[in-house]
């Protein structure tokens, strides 16, 4: 009898080329990687300098997403010389090494973590590593994805493997059911607040429980995406019938006999009864309220009915200084209520929340209403395909009629590496994943929340509980 194994054990066992010591270090085989224009250049240069080849070019897919403009009219030109050089170099590298590229004008272009699932490029049971921390997103498909740096991209390109050390396992069980107006973003934001921005450092997270089972595949992507903000190096849930149905019509999903064989193998992808986790955390979805961040770290968050904390109440001097710094940066006073805080910008986009379901939720909130005076509101779809679908469904008309800018796909103001940048002092309700200092522009202030909450803030002109919007508007 073999001991019961976790899903994480199964990912590692099936991908271990060799054990490098008795201490958990492995040579791990990687099924797929996704490349972007800004973390890959030096990796390719490294290969060129050492005259090395790419081990398995078809295991990689490249996409331009971080530096491209998202102006409503699609233009191939990059707004600056640096971005242009990165895009050109990516194209050259893909040509020279035989890697498929979705460039800016490609109808399949978009944010890498939106594009790869919608193409069926990521399948259950895969181990995926890529030069972007939100590679954890793929856990929603029952794959194990994690972010790596440029040196490891180079290692992976050259060897199809990574030297990998086994992590600890954390199971997050979410019971209960989400109330109206609440979405999976609120689950993961509540988790991050609960365990802290380093609460899962050194761990991978397996999500489980009825509230997770009830989520759509896209909603699960939001959870796995943002789990990295708690420090998790990998976050996933066992794939179920919803995942298989999601994949069935994707361009690169297996077909016919291959599909049947794949399905049989995917159904084994779950933690065995009695498998042991290093740590367990439980959440009750029915107790959640819509979440917003007030600080400069994703764990500095509260429910929309909450208030800005008072640093004076913090005993630990380092933590007190961190709090003071966050409030100074955010321009907030202790005790100030979060609802009612005026905003200048609203941004709906990013790999966390710019899929078609997110946009449908936004449309429900904004239909027949207007963005408040003095607020610049933008919607940047997660991929060019999502954009096309939203136009087919009539969502784009609703957004434009409400006064939102309806833009082309890219990372855009999630990290402001292109020309979508906030100015010092701007305050933005944002459906993204990071509220770090300067993330959306030097001196700019970011409040993270669900897409429907961003939409509500855009209409009201201030942070507001989306569930009370109808009464107020």
């Amino acid at each position, binding site marked *: 009898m073999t001991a019961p194994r976790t899903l994480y054990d199964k990912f590692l066992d099936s991908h271990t080329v060799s054990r490098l010591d008795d201490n958990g*270090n492995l040579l791990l085989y990687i099924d797929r990687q996704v490349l972007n224009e800004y973390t890959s250049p030096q990796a390719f240069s490294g290969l060129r300098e050492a005259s090395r080849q790419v081990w398995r070019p078809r295991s990689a897919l490249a996409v331009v997403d971080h530096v491209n403009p998202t102006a409503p009219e699609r233009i191939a030109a990059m707004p600056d010389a640096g971005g242009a050089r990165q895009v050109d170099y990516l194209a050259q590298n893909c040509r020279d090494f035989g890697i498929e590229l979705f460039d800016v004008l490609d109808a399949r272009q978009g944010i890498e973590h939106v594009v790869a699932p919608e193409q069926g490029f990521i399948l259950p049971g895969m181990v995926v590593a890529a030069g972007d921390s939100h590679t954890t997103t793929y856990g929603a498909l029952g794959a194990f994805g994690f*972010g790596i740096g440029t040196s490891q991209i180079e290692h992976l390109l050259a060897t199809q493997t990574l030297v990998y050390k086994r992590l600890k396992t954390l199971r997050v069980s979410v019971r209960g059911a989400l109330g109206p107006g609440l979405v999976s973003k609120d689950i993961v934001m509540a988790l991050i607040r609960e365990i802290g921005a380093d609460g899962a450092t050194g761990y991978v997270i397996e999500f489980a429980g009825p509230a997770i089972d009830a989520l759509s595949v896209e909603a699960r992507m939001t959870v796995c995406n943002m789990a990295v903000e708690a420090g998790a190096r990998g976050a996933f849930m066992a794939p179920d019938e919803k995942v298989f149905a999601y994949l069935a019509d994707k361009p690169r999903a297996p077909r016919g006999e291959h599909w049947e064989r794949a399905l049989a193998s995917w159904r084994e992808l779950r933690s065995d009864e009695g498998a042991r986790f290093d740590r367990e955390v439980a959440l009750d979805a029915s107790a959640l309220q819509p979440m917003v961040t007030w600080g400069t770290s994703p764990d500095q968050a509260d429910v929309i009915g909450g208030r800005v904390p008072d640093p004076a109440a913090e005993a630990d001097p380092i933590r007190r200084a961190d709090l003071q710094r966050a409030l100074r940066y955010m321009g907030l006073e202790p005790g100030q209520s979060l609802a009612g805080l005026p905003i200048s910008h609203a941004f709906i986009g990013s790999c966390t929340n710019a899929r078609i379901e997110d946009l449908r939720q936004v449309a429900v909130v904004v239909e027949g209403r207007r963005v408040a005076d003095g607020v610049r509101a933008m919607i940047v779809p997660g991929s060019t395909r999502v954009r096309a679908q939203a136009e087919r469904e009539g969502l784009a008309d609703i957004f434009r009629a409400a006064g939102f800018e309806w833009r082309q796909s890219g990372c855009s103001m999630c990290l402001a590496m292109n020309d979508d940048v906030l100015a010092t002092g701007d305050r933005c309700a944002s459906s993204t994943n*990071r509220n770090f200092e*300067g993330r959306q522009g030097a001196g700019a202030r970011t409040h993270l929340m669900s897409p429907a909450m961003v939409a509500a803030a855009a209409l009201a002109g201030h942070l507001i509980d989306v569930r009370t919007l109808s009464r107020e508007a």
Partner: protein
Amino acid sequence: MQPFVRVSGVAAPFLAANVDTDVIMPKQFLKGIDRNGLDRGLFFDLRWNPDGSPNPEFVLNRPGWQDACFLVVGPNFGCGSSREHAVWGLKQVGIRALIGTSFAGIFDDNCQRNGLLTIALDPASHRQLAERVQQAETARIEVDLQAQRIRLADGAELAFEIDGLRKQALLEGLDAIGSTLRQAERIRAFEEKYLAERPWLA
């Protein structure tokens, strides 16, 4: 990779929690296709005033710590974006080791790949070290990777743990890709069997 065996120098305190890689290397420095010029970008908004002059408040600009080659940092240092530019920038200003209590996973791996030692101390040792390096007079330390010891100015020693494989790679300045490629045949054999069992991936 530059080997790390035993290094002595000044350690600067930078103890905030959850210092993210956006703060370590802001986005405007990510537009290159090489690794050059990142020394200027390191901690850009903290290190430089809006007019480009050094911010006298920032620890690496203060007398006594300007030549620091170690940073004593707070918990979860390097969280957020995977950008290795953060590590290249630290290397380019001459930082050889970071000493904290915990490091974000991707950042930690990036440090390792660039010969930048990360040391996760137990909280008591970390507090002791942080106190010493707050004063420039006692900020000089020696980090001995072989012995897994930090020696303070007064001769006190702090022991630290490190993964054996990591330690060896740092001591030797190992070329990680080269050593993995010595297993190329094993990888090839694994891959053939793996794909044969999963024809939908082949």
